């Protein structure tokens, strides 16, 4: 099936706003995994992620009549998820999205990463790249992690991430670079031959 034949996300969302339930099913099928993983990696708890995931889609359903395709649908969807996550952080008072440039949190981030990597049993049992990668991502500073997840899970560009997070494009670019460097550093033993 050619890609051009598939309806765009924006068309599907407009169709759903007009009353087409099937359009929502298609849209949901396309983006449910990315949104769920974005939330799961950010909050680090499956139960909370489920709750936030449901809230995000409920907000989308409620806001369908006001939807206007002035931006990419994915940007709008992840903005909803981002805002819901911030509300969750504010309500729980546990953490905030901070930049990796913030030196005050640098030690905490390093501690999480070291904790993951220093565990002998985990290192012994989870040789698999994916597992280490997940831990490494979880260990990233929140802002870098968010930029990385939005880029990887949502497929958003630097500009779209910048628009969504309210940061500058250069800031987003820097966050991404820091995130990659950190991950590369954590997985250096696996990728040493490629260097």
């Amino acid at each position: 099936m050619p890609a051009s034949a598939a309806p765009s996300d924006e068309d599907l969302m407009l169709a759903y706003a007009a009353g087409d339930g099937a359009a929502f099913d298609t849209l949901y099928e396309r983006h449910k995994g990315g949104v769920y993983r974005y939330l799961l990696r950010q909050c680090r708890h499956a139960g909370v992620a489920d709750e936030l995931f449901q809230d995000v889609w409920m907000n989308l359903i409620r806001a369908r009549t006001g939807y206007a395709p002035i931006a990419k649908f994915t940007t709008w969807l992840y903005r909803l998820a981002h805002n819901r996550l911030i509300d969750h952080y504010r309500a729980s008072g546990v953490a905030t999205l901070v930049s990796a440039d913030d030196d005050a949190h640098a030690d905490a981030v390093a501690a999480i990463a070291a904790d993951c990597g220093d565990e002998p049993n985990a290192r012994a049992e989870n040789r698999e790249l994916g597992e280490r990668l997940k831990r490494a991502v979880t260990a990233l500073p929140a802002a870098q992690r968010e930029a990385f997840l939005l880029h990887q899970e949502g497929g958003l560009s630097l500009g779209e991430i910048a628009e969504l997070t309210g940061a500058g494009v250069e800031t987003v670019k820097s966050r991404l670079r820091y995130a990659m460097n950190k991950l590369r550093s954590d997985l250096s033993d696996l990728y040493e031959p490629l260097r």
Partner: protein
Amino acid sequence: MSEIDRELEAAWRAASKEQPPAALDASVRAAAHRAVDARPGKPKSWWWVKTYWAPLAAAAMVTIIAVGIVQLTPPEQVTPGVVAERAAPPQPAEQDSRKPSVPPPTAAEPARRDAASATDELARKRDAEDARKKLAQSPSPTQPASNVAAVAEQEKKRASTVQFAAKEEQRPAAAPEGAPAEVKTQSAGVPAPAARSEPFPAAQAPAERGQAAVAAAAPAAALRRSEPFPAAQPQGIAAGAAAPTLREAAPEATAKLEAAGDKAPAKPELAKMATMDQARAKDAAAPRPADEWIKLIRRLRAEGKSEEAAKELAAFRAAYKERADELLPADLRAAKP
């Protein structure tokens, strides 16, 4: 991005494959579909759009049919119960105990009433003739001249009543309900209410209607039930000792008329018969009082018509027999026919 980044991205895509739970999926999808189905702006089903007018059309049709039936139905059949209820006069207990129970009027009552009134007219006229004959044949020797004059006056009044009734019968059926009631009321000696012009008798004012019913129906109906000749009742009372009741005076005529009433002939035939009877009654019923008769005889004699005067004198004597000499003045008493 470097080669390492591509490897990293590929590794990430391979590792990160978590999906929301199936229950959560179902919940979200259901909520989305519910929201769409319950949307206020959702177009309604085509079936409803096509059939929404059906109840309205049915209600309109029922209303039209009902109004049409009411308009086309004769007034008596619109509210027969009400008409019957209102027409029934409040009868005293004495009358009720005396008379057999009469069924309430039905829808065929007007036609029967017309026939009955015409029969009554006919009976009244025949009865009057018979009574007059009897009276002429057997004048009481003790009856004073004034009594005879009163009888003649009563006859005159009754003739005028009969004439009025015949006119009413001949009148085209402009007010088919009003005419018989009027005739009955007049024959009962009670002033008749104005003829009803409204198409629905049931719509008449209750007070007026009640009075009319009491005035017309009570005596008239009572007399009609006990006596087939309601008009003969005042006559009989006036005649007093000479003829206590007309039934006694003319039993054959009564029987005939009762039979005629049972047959209930058609209205035009009855009207024709009534007209003929009226003409006959006019001829025969002109009772000549003794004073007038005497004046006539004298006038004839003064005009030189001695033969006619003699005839009239003979007729006078034949009519009054023994009392003729008492009534005649001395000059005519001596004259022998």
